[in-house]
C-alpha cells in the first residue's frame, strides 16, 4: 500500500469508524451468532462435559463431508475467544460459552438463539415485508426453541398458576398452547386430583409435550392433543383455562372471539388465567412485537388495559390484572365465567 492510499483512507475517516464498529457491534454480533449456533447444535453442552477433537464433534453433529467447514467454524469460535484449542481438542474458554454450556442456563441459551434466529432476521426484513414482501409464518418459528426460551419467566408464570389452582378439590384444567407442558405439570403437581387437557397448535410441540407427560408419570392425568382452541368443540367441563404467553398468536381483532370461545369451555364460576408480556417492556419485547406484526398470523403484544377490556367484552367478570415481575411488563390476567345469579344465600345459614 502506498502513502497516497493511506492518506486517502485517513481523510475519509472510515478507518476509525470501522474499527469502532468492529469492536462495539460486529464482533458482538459474531459472538452472539456463534454462541447461538453452538448452543443450538449442542456443541457447548458437549464441550462443557469434556474437550473434544474435531472428529468427535463431526460425528456428534453428523458432519460427514465438509469437515473443513466445521473446522473453520470452530476456529472462528477460537478467534472470538469463546473456544480454546489445546492438544488437538476444542474446549470452552469464554465466560459466556462456559455459562451457556451449563444445562441450568438452557433457557438463557434458548433466548439467545431466539434473538439471533428470529429477532435479527425480522429487524432486517421488516421494511421489505412492509413493502409487501412475504410475511413470516408459523413455520418460521421453532416451537422447541420458544418453549425453551420462555423458561426464563417460568418462576413468574408458576407463581401465577399457584394463585389460581385449587389444591384439594377434583378439578379439570385446559391449557391452551401448552408448549413443553411444564405449566400443566406444575398445576398437576399442585393438586394431585387435577386432570388436564393440554393443547398446542403445532404437531411436534404437542408430541413432545405428550412424551414429557409420559416421562413425568402424568400421562393418565394430563392428555395432550394437537388442537386449535378456536376449533375446540367441547362441553364446558373445565374449571380453569390457562393461556401462557400466546395471546399474541391471535390477531388483535380475533382475541375477543378466542376469549369468548375459552369462556364457553368453562363451567359457570370457572376461571381463565392468562399470562403475557405486554407492550412497554424492554426492547427485546418490542422486537418480538415487531416479529408478530410481520407474521401472517398473530398480532402485536397486548396493551394491558386493552386486554382487560377484551376479557370483559368476552363476558368475563371479576377481571383482575397484576404484574408478575416488579416494574416489568410481564402480567397475569384472571377472569371468571360467572352466571349473573351464581350467588347463594344458603351459606349465610352457617
Amino acid at each position: 500500500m502506498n502513502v497516497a492510499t493511506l492518506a486517502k483512507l485517513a481523510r475519509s475517516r472510515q478507518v476509525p469508524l470501522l474499527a469502532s464498529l468492529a469492536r462495539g457491534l460486529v464482533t458482538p454480533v459474531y459472538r452472539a451468532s456463534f454462541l447461538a449456533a453452538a448452543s443450538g447444535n449442542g456443541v457447548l453442552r458437549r464441550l462443557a462435559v469434556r474437550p473434544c477433537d474435531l472428529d468427535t464433534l463431526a460425528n456428534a453433529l453428523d458432519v460427514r463431508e465438509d469437515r473443513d467447514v466445521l473446522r473453520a467454524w470452530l476456529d472462528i469460535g477460537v478467534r472470538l475467544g469463546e473456544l480454546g484449542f489445546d492438544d488437538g481438542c476444542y474446549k470452552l474458554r469464554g465466560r459466556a460459552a462456559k455459562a451457556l454450556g451449563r444445562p441450568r442456563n438452557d433457557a438463557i441459551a434458548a433466548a439467545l438463539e431466539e434473538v439471533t434466529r428470529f429477532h435479527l432476521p425480522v429487524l432486517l426484513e421488516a421494511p421489505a415485508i412492509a413493502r409487501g414482501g412475504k410475511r413470516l409464518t408459523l413455520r418460521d418459528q421453532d416451537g422447541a426453541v420458544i418453549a425453551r426460551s420462555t423458561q426464563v419467566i417460568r418462576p413468574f408464570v408458576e407463581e401465577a398458576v399457584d394463585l389460581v389452582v385449587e389444591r384439594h378439590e377434583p378439578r379439570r384444567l385446559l391449557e391452551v398452547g401448552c408448549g413443553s407442558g411444564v405449566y400443566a405439570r406444575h398445576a398437576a403437581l399442585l393438586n394431585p386430583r387435577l386432570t388436564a387437557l393440554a393443547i398446542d397448535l403445532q404437531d411436534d410441540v404437542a408430541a413432545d409435550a405428550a412424551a414429557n407427560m409420559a416421562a413425568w408419570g402424568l400421562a393418565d392425568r394430563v392428555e395432550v392433543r394437537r388442537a386449535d382452541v378456536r376449533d375446540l368443540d367441547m362441553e364446558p367441563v373445565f374449571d380453569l383455562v390457562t393461556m401462557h404467553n400466546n395471546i399474541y398468536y391471535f390477531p388483535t381483532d380475533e382475541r375477543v372471539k378466542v376469549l369468548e370461545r375459552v369462556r364457553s369451555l368453562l363451567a359457570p364460576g370457572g376461571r381463565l388465567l392468562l399470562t403475557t408480556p405486554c407492550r412497554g417492556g424492554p426492547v427485546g419485547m418490542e422486537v418480538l412485537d415487531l416479529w408478530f406484526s410481520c407474521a401472517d398470523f398473530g398480532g402485536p403484544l397486548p396493551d394491558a388495559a386493552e386486554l382487560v377490556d377484551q376479557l370483559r367484552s368476552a363476558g368475563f367478570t371479576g377481571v383482575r390484572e397484576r404484574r408478575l415481575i416488579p416494574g416489568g411488563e410481564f402480567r397475569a390476567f384472571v377472569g371468571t365465567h360467572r352466571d349473573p345469579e351464581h350467588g347463594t344465600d344458603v351459606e349465610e345459614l352457617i
Partner: protein
Amino acid sequence: MSTPTSAAHATATANRELVVLGAGEPPPAELLGGKALRLDELLRAGLPVPPAFCLTTDLFERFLKETGLDARITGTAPAELREKIMATDIPASVAGAVLDAYGDLGRPRVAVRSSATAEDSESHSFAGQHDTVLDVAGDAALLDAVKVCWASLWTDRAAAYRDAAHAGSIAVVVQQMVHADTGGVLFTRDPVSGRDDRFVVEGCWGLGEGLVAGKVTSDFFLLDPDGPQVVDQQIRYKVTKCAPVVPGTVGLVKVDAAARNVPCLTPDQLADLAALAVRVRDHYGAEQDIEWAMRDGTPYLLQSRPITTTPVRDRRTSPYVEPQPDAIRTGTLWSRMDIGEIFTGVMSPLGQSFAQYYQHNVHRGCALSTGVRDPGDMSLHMGYLQGHVYLNISYTSYLLGQCLPTRDQSRFTSRFASEEVDLDTYENPFGTWPGGPREEAQAAAFWLKTSITELRTMKKRARRMVRSRFYEFDRAQGIDLTRLDRPELNAELKRRLAYFNDMHIGYMPYYMNAFGFYGVLEALCGAWLGQEGASLRNRIKTDMSSLRTVESAREIWALAQVARRDPRVMEIIRAGSAHDVSTRLRADESGRAFWDGHMVPFLRENGTRGHQEMELTHPRWIDDPSYVFQMIRRYAEEGFSIDEVLDRAHDPREDEAAQALSRLPAPKRRTIEKVMSLYETCSRLRELTRMSMITSIWLVRRVVYEVGRRLVEAGVLRSLDEVADLDFADVLEYLSGDRDPRRVFSRAKLEEARRTFRAYARLPEPPLSFVGEWDVTRAVRPAPDGVRLEGLGASPGRIVGRARIIEDLVWQADEFQVGEVLVTRFTDASWTPLFAIAGAVVTDIGSMLSHSSIVSREFRVPSVVNSKHATQMIKTGDLVMVDGDRGVVEVVETDERKNG
C-alpha cells in the same frame, strides 16, 4: 282360471303363511317361532289361551321379496333396515291376507307380539328382545304393529347378542287382547328355595306387563299345589297399575283407593291358576314360568316357557360377603336401622353394587374423619342380605372403641338394635378394642386431634361444602353428557366420584358428632335433671328456618303461592297427570315465565333431592318434578300458611323443662347449654351438608344414566329400566377402556341380577337388625291381632286421626289430606313437605335422631318411629291414636267401609 289343484295349492300356501293357532293340522315349528309355537301347543292341549293367529316366517319372507327388501339385507345397517321396513307399505296381497285373518278373529283389540325363530333356543335367552305392541285396534294400527314386530328382528338389542348374519326370521302373533283385572306370573318352582312342591304367584292389578317390567308393586303368594292352598302371602300397598290409557296406549294409572290394600287374587282364583299350572307343567314335563291374566274371574294363559335358571343353591343367610369363622358369622350384630335413610329397603343390583363401591372406596375415609385411627378391614364394615344393605354393628362398635366417647360399646349398639335383638344375650364376637397402653394412647390422641380440628374447622368446611354443591350443580347443568366421548365421560365420572368421596367424608363428622353430643346431653340430663331432663332432651329446638329440610317445605309453599297468583299457571299445574306438567308449563307463555323465574331456582336449591338417595335408580326432583307439582297442588288448595304450621301451639312442658334447667347451679346449667348448642350446631350443619352429599350422588347418577342411554342405543340394554340391573363396577370398567360393551356387560349377568332382585323383592323383608344369620324360610310373620304398636316416641304429643299409608310418595302426595296420620316405612328429606300438613307421623324404621324424628320435632307433629309393622298392620282410613310421648300407636277404629 282356477283348477281344483291350484285352489288346493293356494290353501296350502295360505296355511303356511297365516296360521290360526290351535286349529287344523299342527304347522311346522320353524314357521311359527318360539312364542307362537308354544301358544299353539297350549291351545291344542285345551288350555285357556286367548284366540290368536300367526303371521308365519313365510309371510315375512314374501313381504321381503315382494317389496324388494330381501336383496338389500346384506350390508345394510340394522337401524337402516328397520327404517326401511317401517317406511315400506305392506303389499296389498299380504295386507289383505292379514286383515282377512283379523276379520275371522272378529276384529277385537289385539296384542301384537313378535315370535322370532332364534328366540328362546337352548343357549340364547332372547325372551323379550323383540317387540310387543299392546291394545291395537283397527286395520291400519294392526298393520303398523306388524311392521314394528317385523322390524324388531333387526333391533340393535337383538343384533347385539347375535351374529348379525344369522338373524333368523320372524313370525308375528296377533292375539285377542285380555284387558286384565289382574295379571302376573306363576313359577311352578320357588325360584328362591328351589322347592318344586311350591308354586310362586306374583300378581298385580291391571296388565301383567307392569309387573314384568318392575314398574308396579305386586302381591306375593306361595302355594302348595296339592291343596291347592295358600301357604304364605305378602299383600302390598298397590298404588299404580298398568292399563290402556287410551286405545293403543298402555301406561301407568292409579289403583282405586279401596283396592290398594286388598289381595289382587282370591283364594279361588289362586286355586284355578294352580290347577292350570299343574296341567301346563304335566303337559311339558318340565317346570314352567307362566304369564297369566285374570278377567272377570276367568284365568287366561298368555305365555309359558320352561324355567331355564338353576335354583339358587346355597341361599345366603349371612350378610358377610366373604366366609368368616363360625363365631363371627353367628355372633355379629347387623343393622339397617339408621343407615336405612340412605340405603333404604330393598336395593336394585345397581344400588347394591354402588353401596359396595362406597364401602370399598369411601367408607374408610369416613371412619378416619370421625376420629377412628385404625379403620380396620373395609370388607367387614358392611354386609348384604336379600337385597338389603346392613351395617356391621359389632365390627363398627369394636373399632369405635378407639374413640373416647364410644369406648363403651353399649350406647352405639343399643341405638342400632331393634326389638328383635336380645341385647342381654348378645356379646360382640370381635370383643373390645384390644390395644395395649401404647395403641390406646395413640388412638386417643388421634381421636382428640381429629375432634379438636373438627370443632375448629366444621363451619368452614360446611361453608365450602355448600358453595361447592352449587358450583358442581351449575357445572353439571351446563354439560351435555351425550356429547362426551368415552374417555371424556370417564374423566367426568372420576371427577364426580372424587366429589362424592369428599362430600361423604365431609358429612360424616357432623353425623357422628351430633350423635356424640346428643349422648352427652342424654347423660347429663339424666344425671342432673332426672325426669324433666328426659323431656328436655327431646325438645331441643333448633331455629326452624335453619333446618334445610324444613326450608324445602317452606320453599314449595312459597312456590305454591307464586303459582296461585297466576291462574293460568295454576290451571296447567292442576290439569292432567303431574308427570307432564313441566312439559306443558314450558310450552306456555305464562308457564314458561313461572318455570324460568321460579322452578329453575327452586330446583337449583332442592332439585337433587329424591327418596333413598343412595339408590341410584330413583329419580330426583330435578329428573322428575312431578312430586313437587303434587305438593304445589296440595299447598295451593289448602290455602294455609306454612308459617302458621311452624308456629304451632306452644308446648307448656317446654317451660317446665326450661324451669328445671334454670334451677340447676350455674356451672351445670352452662355445661348443658353448651352441649345443647354444640348438638344443635352439628345437627344444623349435618342438614346443610347433607344436601351436598345428596348432590354428589345425583352427579354420579347422571353419568350412570348416560352410560345406560348409550347401552340402550348399542342394544345392550332393552330400555333405561334395565339400568337398575347394571353392576356399578362394570360401568367403571366400561368407561375406563374401549372394550366392546357387549363383553363388559354380559346379558346373562344382567338377567341373573334382575331375577335375583325380583326374587328378593317378593320375599318378606329381613329384619331391621339381627344377630348372626337370618333365614327367610324361618321368618316369623307378625301376629295380626295386636293392633297396638310400640315404637320410639320421636316427637311428643298425642293425636287421633285417620291414617293414610303412603307407599309411593310421587304418586300419592296429592291424596294426602291435612291432618291425616302419615304412615309409611320410613321418611327422608324429600318427605318434609308432607310433614307440614300431617297430624302425626308413624314410620316402620327410624331412631330418635333419624330425619323423620328431627323434622317432626321441628314441625311439632307427634311422631312414633321404629314401629316395625305400622304399614302392614294399619290400613288407610283406620282411625289411629298416636302417642308421641310413650311411643305407642293404636288403631282406635278400623275403617268400616273396607272391612264391611
